[in-house]
């Protein structure tokens, strides 16, 4: 190996002490990186929060997260399981079921005498679990599939893209209806199926076209010139540039997962114990839905929760889009 020291430094380049005062070692390296990460997170956050809708949606998601955390705490302290269990409880104190809101039951009880607030809170937790599981599955699959089929092209690409066409051609609700007829879907499998459908379908196509536009950038050739192999190029250069977009689609998957679960529960096709969709299903099955505003507590809390949480994730995704996609930003520079 030749060494720099044997050569005269180029004129015009001032000779600098070795490392330019950066001899502090690995710790300094890590510190510098941590500072960088913090800085880019802050500037991204600043842009995100500049959008009022982004802030609002983040707050909404926060409130729902608190609700999800609150349920086990309440059950462990002030609520006794016999009365307040979301599935097996019964409000003996109420004279008739469903009972309107009262101090003991702030959102009343359902036709089977169960506390609506407790049902609402306990469902929140499963909705989060469902949404996040599905989103993680989608993003992992879509990012990998997108990067790999953009990088290799040819047969690999054709295979994944035809598969994506298939997933898109079968609308997910219809497909899930069929799947629920053929198999018993639990919450976890539902999350998995929705995640897989999202990951191999439209999201994979979008991420692939993004990956394609990254693949033809000169910095990919520069990485090849450095001697980088396929792994280095896909996971060090392509995937990190896909992540912001994946994050965006993660938000959208959360929305569609919560939505799909609610629809299937409403149609009575799912094998799960409690969810917002099941709450509405129960009310609908008892014929309370078309009675207008009289039994509002049976439908409104669950319906509003579905809409609010879905919109919140959706709007958060859109606000994120404004951060990720510089072309949408309102100001130049």
């Amino acid at each position, binding site marked *: 190996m030749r060494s720099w020291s044997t050569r005269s430094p180029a004129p015009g380049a001032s000779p600098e002490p070795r490392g330019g005062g950066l001899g502090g070692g690995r710790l300094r390296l890590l510190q510098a990186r941590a500072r960088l990460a913090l800085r880019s997170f802050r500037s991204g956050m600043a842009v995100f929060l500049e959008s009022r*809708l982004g802030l609002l949606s983040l707050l909404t998601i926060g409130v729902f997260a608190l609700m999800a955390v609150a349920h086990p705490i309440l059950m462990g302290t002030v609520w006794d399981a016999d009365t307040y269990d979301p599935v097996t409880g019964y409000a003996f104190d109420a004279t008739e079921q469903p009972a309107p809101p009262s101090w003991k039951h702030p959102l009343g009880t359902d036709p089977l005498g169960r506390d609506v607030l407790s049902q609402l809170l306990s469902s929140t937790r499963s909705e989060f679990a469902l949404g996040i599981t599905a989103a993680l599955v989608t993003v992992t699959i879509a990012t990998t599939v997108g990067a790999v089929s953009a990088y290799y092209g040819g047969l690999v690409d054709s295979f994944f893209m*035809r*598969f994506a*066409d*298939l997933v*898109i*051609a*079968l*609308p*997910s*609700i*219809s*497909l899930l*209806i*069929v*799947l*629920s*007829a*053929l*198999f018993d879907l639990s919450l976890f499998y539902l999350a998995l199926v929705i995640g897989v459908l999202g990951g191999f379908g*439209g999201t994979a196509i979008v991420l692939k076209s993004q990956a394609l536009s990254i693949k033809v950038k000169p910095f990919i050739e520069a990485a090849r010139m450095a001697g980088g192999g396929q792994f280095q190029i896909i996971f060090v250069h392509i995937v990190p540039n896909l992540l912001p977009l994946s994050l965006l689609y993660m938000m959208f998957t959360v*929305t569609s997962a919560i*939505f799909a679960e*609610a*629809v299937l529960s*409403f*149609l009575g*096709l799912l094998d799960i114990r409690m969810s*917002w*969709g099941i709450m*509405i299903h129960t009310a*609908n099955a008892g014929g309370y*839905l*078309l009675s*207008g505003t009289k039994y509002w507590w049976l*439908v409104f809390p669950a*319906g509003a929760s*579905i*809409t609010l949480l*879905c*919109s919140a994730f*959706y*709007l958060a995704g*859109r606000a994120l*889009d404004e951060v990720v*996609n510089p*072309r*949408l930003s*309102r100001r130049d520079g």
Partner: protein
Amino acid sequence: MASYLARRIAQMALTLFLILTVTFVLVQAQPGDYASFYALNPDLPPDVKEQMRATFGLDRPVWQQYLIHMRNTVTGNFGVSFGHFPRPVLEVLAERLPRTIVLFGTATAASVYIGFLLGKAIAWRRGGLLEYTATISGTVLFTAFTPAFALTMIWLFAFRLGWLPVGKFLDPLVWRDADVTSTSVFSFMLLTAVAFVGFAALVLFISGRGDRIGRRWPATLALAAGALVAALAWTLSGIGPLALDILKHMVLPVATLTLISFAGTMLLTRNSMLETVREDYVTAARAKGLPDGQVRDRHAARNALLPVVTSLIYSLIFALDGSVIVESVFSWPGIGLTLLEAVRSEDLPLVMGAIVFIGFLSLLSHLIVDVLYAYLDPRIRYQ
């Protein structure tokens, strides 16, 4: 363009093949086997069971069953429906397909058109009250829980206000003396729509050939004349009142579908517009001294339309999914409701047939979108 379309059609044929394979695999993978499904159904007479066994080759090896499944689908032989015994699946589906297409086609056209207009407007004037109102209400409707929203619509417009019928697709009282079936009326309606769209495309194509860019009235006149002829034909045919009855039943589901899905197109158009307004040709159009509206419509929005058309595929799928839900809430007996009923009654042949039809319908929408895109983008047209 021909080679572009040929390639797309080849890809779609491949996708259809994949759909058939997947349905087959699903049936094979489900717990319990298909043969016993038939064997255990008490509604079926033994000779029918024997016939089905032969049709589906249920006693043969799996790979032969697969080939038979393929052949059956291509020839339209989905077997006999359990729930509608002894009607063949194909007959049940053929009756319901026009109803779904009419509902879903109208709603998609309405939602895309409204979404495009609104998206265009909010992108051109950013930060206004309209932008916030449209974005928030659009998103809330977009993510609203469709069944609950549809029921609210029914409750409000049918029960409280009594303006529109509650559900179903026709009023038996009106149809008691009719000597035509609802299916044929639906088919006529569909035919009229297709003929009109074809006529409109022709008119626009011819008017687009001219020199003058701004002159629009001949095209408008021709379109109005076409609409008049269609309306006259319906009035004179004698089945006008029947069609009117169907239309009255359509209003609520179409409105519901439109309201839940326009936001998708709107928000996409907005984003797409925000990108095109930065293009040099839009600046050039403004520099040329063109009126504001012309810069917006002819240049910014016209180019913003391209990605919107691409994503129309997703909007269509979204609407197709939505129409399954809406059909079930409004008791609209189309493909979606058929699928749901078939699932509930474990009518497996009908389930398979319906899902293949839905897949086929969405592939067909794909193809239409591709043709539209190729028409709108000269860069593809002349490849």
